[in-house]
């Protein structure tokens, strides 16, 4: 509306001015006053319009300034956002590198020899670290390097690099100061370093030494395309530092592994040697034991005949065959007879043990009816039981028969019962118990006697061992009874063991196969 109104007013004003000019004589007379009003009105309107335009222009300038201000803010936002992108990019790169380091670490973990560690650098890892080529070598001495990993480097280029590193003394410098260093063609002044970059055909390279505590040292070169700014270079150096650290740990570990593997081999060899020696000693012991048994057997046999003569003559003397004896003589002769009996028993036991050990006695395996078996045993021990007024309890729990050699098994149980009687004070109780146990019979002889000290138990079945107690000091014995019992039971493929408590009593148990 504004502009069109302006044009209409301007048109009227122009028309009026024209009319004033053309017919001023008669118009002035009749329309003068009206025309003057119109002209003045138009001029006032135009003045107002100009003022309004000036205000709008100011507003426009203000808006433009605000727009420019917004644009400046946009620039600020972009710069800030760019920084974020840059940080993100750097983080991504670090993350990728760390992932690669992690993967490489896992590969290095399984390296069993230091040489393997130096050959584990691969193209993918080098690329993920942001480098384009690389060399990793082992340095047997500070004067030489043997390349183990070549990444996008030809063998001839690697040979040239080796020659240059050694000849220029760079290798010694790297090994003396192994921390990673970035060399860039733009800033390097040293001739040797400049030539290194030329040989590698890259504008930047990180050189680092691998200096493990144990094992061989190494040298690492990683070249990259494109120049780096100082923060990139620092990041690269840090990254390579982590990498060399991992390599050092891997070399240390593999060296230790190699050492421990060698120690283990040595140990195994020694164990084998000792085992062999022990086996030989054992064989010698077995041979000696047999010789002992043979000797005992032979000596015992030789002793028996004269002993039978001594016993026979003593018996004849005792019966007065060679004239009546006075009381002291009779007593001495009786003593001779008792001692001869004891000696005979000792020799019999020794002979039996020797026979069983040498396998000259084979145990019969026949069915033994339990009832008769128990009766015969009872017959033998009855007088002793009576003498000490001991209660004798026999339980067979449905066991009707045993399997084995009746004569030897009788010896076993008579022996165990005799011992029980011997060590049980008057008025005590002895229990002979049989019970089935799968394909075996468990036989046990318990007493309410003086019991056996715990430290005596392991030696109880040894030959000639006699428990150290007052009763043994009073009562004579051969120290062979239990040893013989054990051998007879073992010859039956059975087991024997004892449970005892001092002053409460003992239980000797036997497991005898019947199947």
């Amino acid at each position, binding site marked *: 509306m504004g502009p069109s109104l302006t044009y209409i007013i301007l048109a009227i004003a122009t028309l009026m001015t024209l009319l004033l000019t053309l017919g001023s004589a008669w118009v002035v007379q009749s329309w003068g006053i009206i025309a003057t009003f119109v002209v003045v009105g138009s001029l006032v309107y135009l003045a107002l319009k100009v003022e309004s335009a000036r205000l709008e222009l100011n507003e426009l300038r203000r808006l433009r300034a605000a727009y420019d201000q917004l644009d400046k803010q*946009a*620039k600020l936002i*972009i710069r800030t956002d*760019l920084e974020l992108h840059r940080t993100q*990019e750097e983080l991504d790169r670090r993350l990728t590198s760390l992932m690669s380091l992690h993967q490489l670490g896992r590969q290095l973990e399984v390296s069993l020899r230091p040489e393997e560690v130096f050959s584990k650098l691969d193209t993918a890892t080098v690329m993920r670290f942001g480098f384009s080529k690389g060399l990793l070598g082992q340095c047997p001495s500070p004067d030489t390097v043997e390349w183990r990993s070549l990444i996008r480097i030809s063998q001839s280029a690697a040979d040239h690099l080796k020659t240059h590193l050694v000849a220029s003394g760079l290798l010694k410098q790297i090994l003396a100061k192994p921390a990673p260093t970035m060399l860039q063609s733009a800033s390097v002044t040293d001739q040797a370093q400049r030539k290194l970059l030329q040989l590698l055909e890259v504008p930047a390279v990180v050189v680092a030494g691998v200096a493990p505590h144990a094992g061989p040292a190494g040298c690492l070169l990683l070249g990259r395309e494109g120049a780096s700014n100082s923060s990139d270079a620092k990041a690269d150096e840090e990254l390579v530092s982590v990498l060399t650290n991992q390599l050092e740990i891997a070399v240390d570990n593999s060296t230790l592994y190699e050492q421990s593997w060698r120690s283990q081999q040595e140990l195994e060899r020694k164990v084998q040697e000792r085992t062999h020696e022990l086996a030989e000693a054992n064989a010698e012991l077995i041979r000696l034991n047999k010789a002992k048994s043979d000797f005992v057997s032979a000596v015992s046999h030789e002793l028996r005949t004269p002993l039978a003569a001594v016993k026979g003559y003593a018996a004849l003397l005792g019966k007065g065959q060679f004239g009546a004896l006075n009381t002291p003589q009779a007593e001495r002769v009786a003593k001779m007879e008792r001692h001869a009996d004891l000696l005979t028993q000792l020799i019999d036991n020794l002979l039996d043990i020797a026979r069983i050990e040498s396998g000259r006695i084979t145990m019969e395996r026949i069915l033994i009816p339990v009832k008769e078996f128990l009766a015969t045993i009872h017959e033998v021990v009855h007088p002793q039981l009576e003498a000490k007024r001991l209660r004798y309890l026999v339980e067979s729990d449905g066991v009707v028969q045993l399997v084995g050699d009746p004569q030897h098994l009788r010896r076993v149980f008579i022996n165990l019962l005799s011992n029980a009687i011997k060590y049980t004070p008057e008025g005590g109780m002895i229990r002979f118990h049989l019970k089935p146990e799968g394909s075996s019979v468990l036989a046990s002889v318990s007493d309410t006697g003086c019991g056996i000290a715990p430290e005596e138990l392991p030696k109880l079945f040894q030959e000639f061992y006699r428990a150290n107690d007052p009763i043994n000091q009073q009562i004579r014995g051969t120290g062979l009874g239990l040893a013989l019992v054990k051998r007879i039971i073992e010859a039956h493929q059975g087991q024997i063991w004892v449970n005892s408590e001092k002053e409460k009593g003992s239980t000797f148990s036997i497991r005898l196969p019947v199947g």
Partner: protein
Amino acid sequence: MPTATASGSLTATIGWSEHADAAIAGKEAAESALKRLSSLKPRLALVFGSSWFNQAQLVQGIRSVVGQIPLAGESTAGEISPRGPVSRSCVVLLIASEPLVCRVGVGERVDRAPRAAGQQAARAVLREFPGGTRAGFLLFGDGLVTGYEEAVRGIQEILGTSTPIVGGMAGDDLRFVQTYQYANHQVVSRAVVGVLLGGPVKLGVGIEHGFAPISKPRRITRARGNILYELDEQPAASVYEEYLGPELVQRMRGRGLMRQGIAYPLGIQLEETDQWLLRSVVSFGEDGSLSCSGEVLQDAWLQLMIGNRELALEAARKAAQHAIRSLNQVGCVLVFDSAIRRTLLGSQHAALEIARIREVIGVSTPLVGCYTYGEHAPFGATAAYGRTATHTGSVLVVALGT
């Protein structure tokens, strides 16, 4: 991991292989796609292969399975498989549709004579085309060569402007050394490879980028082709430097494309729309000019653009919605996604972007594609096909169906 769908008369299956050997990868991918087609005969093979493969062996491997059917495709900056964004793999899409007509054509030397190359490709596809409806022209270009706007004009001179031209520019896994395009048995570079699709099939297109303007608008006062000389009558590089700072620009001069640079593309505002065509700065001229990833229009307004992840994901969803809007049945979906977006989004969000597209098109629709160095498509979903342009930083969704 092949997937398949049958939409009316259009059945598509996907095969994918990550085998390190190019010939085996191609063979495996083609075999698994063919197996899913069961008794149907494939009419067209579209291939997206990693640039790390030996390209000739890859194509040979595929052809040993699919035979002499039309084959087209390109090397990538990453592939989009049924598993999402992947790398160092080969993806093969086989389309079986009895009435589908397709012809593959090649125009060479885009770098020297882009318009002639476009014409050559268009003539080649027309030569054997039996006539009938033309659904669209799939374009595979070389991502390291500029001037494809001219090539598109060349194509349009032969095909007319009523056929939509869509596609992507081949990549080489961000190495920027050489990219490849596949045309039947050939592996070429610096070429226009096109597939003219015809018959009772429809092409739905959606392209979005999700970037928003952040700077004040600048008038492009001097530009020619893809070179931007002046903004507001000042050297373009100095204006660019005002925003990004001298240090970064200095580094970009040395290294070329960088993450920080691609994060702020230039946006050319299209007349009478609220759409911006993106361009990234590829290199800096000695005279203060900027070489851009696509043509720059003189006298248009230009603004620096900014994006974020959520906007980028939303853009993918919108592009997918636009692509399927005009179709009754979607047979398969091709995605040409900018390599810039994958870099900016990161692997996790790049996967989410593809997931957004999948949400729109449905889980059973086969979806394949690749990461590109540029995208070709008409502006917006409803704009005239005559205004096909080269885009940057965008996600292009192409739906094939009925």
